[in-house]
């Protein structure tokens, strides 16, 4: 038995061991540098002055709000668009594979290439401006790049992440057996009830996995923001790289800790909200937990 566990531990070291060592070590360095320890230059001294300084900065607070805004709305848009399409494509029909392939194609496109393609469409000399001028809606090209509300970034995030959500949700929806849905229909469940009480609860895991990965990716975005985002606001990743570029490693570390902590709590919150909203019987379900409990008590 001991030999077996020793063997298992030895086998885990090259894979899991390396992951834990590197991620753990980097996390340790970020946390330490944010409180003045493990400094690259100068003396080590425990202090919270970097946190005081960063909390007082408007740019930091703006970046936190901005990154949360991008993370949250990218997740919502990606899932909201992907879910009905996945539902529609659940049962194969003529041409469904083609549509599915086209919609999932952005998965193969690098984020930077996606940003470039997007610029091609919205730049001064982009397709949209050409069309607007051709239709005489405007004489001059309209500036659409780096818009203040970051609609461009949200569009790019959705463009890149929706196919990922579609991939996970389509798999989960296709695995729901027709027998389950037929049984519910035979028992008098309406279309709404079948959707809310059966389909959605059976796809919660896929939805949660997709939402968490999309949220963290969009929340910690750098490239889309740098290329298409507003000029007057930085994302947290951008702010961290900016501080690092100026040699302010401790300030960069405080932003790094913020990214890690908010990514973690954001992911937990996303999972909690999805679970609360959609598990059976969720907030949207006409059936309430107390009704189920009373039925069980009556049966007893």
């Amino acid at each position, binding site marked *: 038995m001991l030999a077996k566990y020793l063997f298992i531990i030895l086998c885990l070291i090259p894979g899991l061991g390396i992951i834990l060592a590197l*991620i753990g070590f980097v996390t340790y360095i970020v946390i330490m540098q944010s409180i003045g320890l493990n400094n690259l230059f100068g003396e080590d001294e425990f202090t919270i002055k970097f946190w005081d300084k960063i909390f007082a900065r408007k740019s930091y607070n703006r970046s936190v709000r901005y990154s949360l805004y991008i993370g949250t709305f990218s997740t919502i848009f990606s899932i909201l668009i992907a879910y009905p399409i996945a539902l529609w494509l659940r049962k194969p029909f003529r041409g469904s594979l083609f549509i599915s392939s086209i919609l999932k194609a952005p998965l193969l496109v690098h984020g930077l290439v996606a940003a470039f393609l997007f610029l091609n469409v919205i730049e001064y000399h982009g397709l949209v401006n050409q069309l607007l001028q051709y239709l005489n809606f405007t004489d001059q090209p309209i500036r659409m790049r780096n818009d203040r509300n970051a609609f461009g970034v949200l569009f790019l995030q959705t463009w890149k992440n929706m196919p990922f959500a579609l991939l996970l949700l389509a798999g989960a929806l296709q695995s729901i057996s027709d027998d389950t849905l037929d049984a519910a229909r035979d028992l008098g469940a309406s279309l709404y009830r079948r959707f809310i009480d059966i389909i959605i609860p059976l796809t919660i895991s896929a939805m949660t996995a997709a939402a968490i990965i999309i949220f963290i990716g969009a929340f910690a975005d750098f490239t889309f923001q740098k290329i298409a985002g507003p000029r007057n606001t930085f994302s947290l990743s951008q702010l961290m790289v900016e501080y690092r570029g100026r040699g302010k490693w401790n300030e960069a570390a405080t932003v790094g800790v913020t990214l890690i902590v908010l990514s973690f709590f954001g992911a937990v919150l996303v999972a909690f909200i999805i679970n609360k909203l959609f598990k059976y019987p969720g907030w949207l379900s006409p059936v309430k937990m107390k009704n189920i409990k009373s039925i069980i008590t009556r049966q007893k």
Partner: protein
Amino acid sequence: MIAKSLHRILFISMIIIGVIWIVVPFIMAILWSLVDPAEPWTVDLVTPPVMSFYRWTYMWESSNLKDALFNSYLLAPTVSIITLIFSIPTAYVFGRYNFVGKEIAKLLCLLPLVTPYFVLSVFLTATIISFGLSEYRVAAIVLAHAVMFLPYAIRIMTVGFEQVSQEHIDAARDLSATTFSRWRVAYFPALRPAFFASILIVFIQSIEEFAVAFILGSPTFVTIPTLLFSTMGQDFVRPNAAVLSLILVVPNVVLMLFLEKLLRTANPAMISGKGLK
């Protein structure tokens, strides 16, 4: 009847959206990569007035494209092989053993997927500087890539190990096969699709990776994504960026299609243990 009409409307809408979604932007990219500098593509023209491969030859001869291609296509296979080697023992115990804490261990393997890549890159750089290992940046990039993409390799190899037929292993053992022979006849044939899938996925991820190569590698170590990023900054020359975009995306699409074909044609007989010759 209404459902049928709705289905048809949705189908046509999806085709139109799909074309706008992916086909039009790529046609634009191809056209921009062919714009000849002698005759600029002005707003009033639907297509470039003169098309040539000038930008392609210019990028090949005058930019860091050669270095970027060399670095990217040297880095990716190296990372793929290292990641595969690291993943095999862990995937083996995940796929073939039951032990306390297995699910937690599997979950912990996903840590790199939920760690913001820029935090990892910036503070790995800090660590390298603090240890005075700045000249080993390329090795650090390889290590960081390997760790970042280990979850994919471990997952794929775990499924591969789970699908190795116990009947084949037992049969080989009953015929007095040595450990090496058992691996050769029972494990390797069933694991081959997982090997290729793992190598390809990590290869594609590594070619595309930007954060680590940008933070750890710049300015001396250039890859295709970091070169593309630099052309999209303040000196945005669209035809040059179009050339780099196509160079980055086309091989990956071909590799992905190859991967899908590979996974579809994975030998079901070997995996299920039925019909083995």
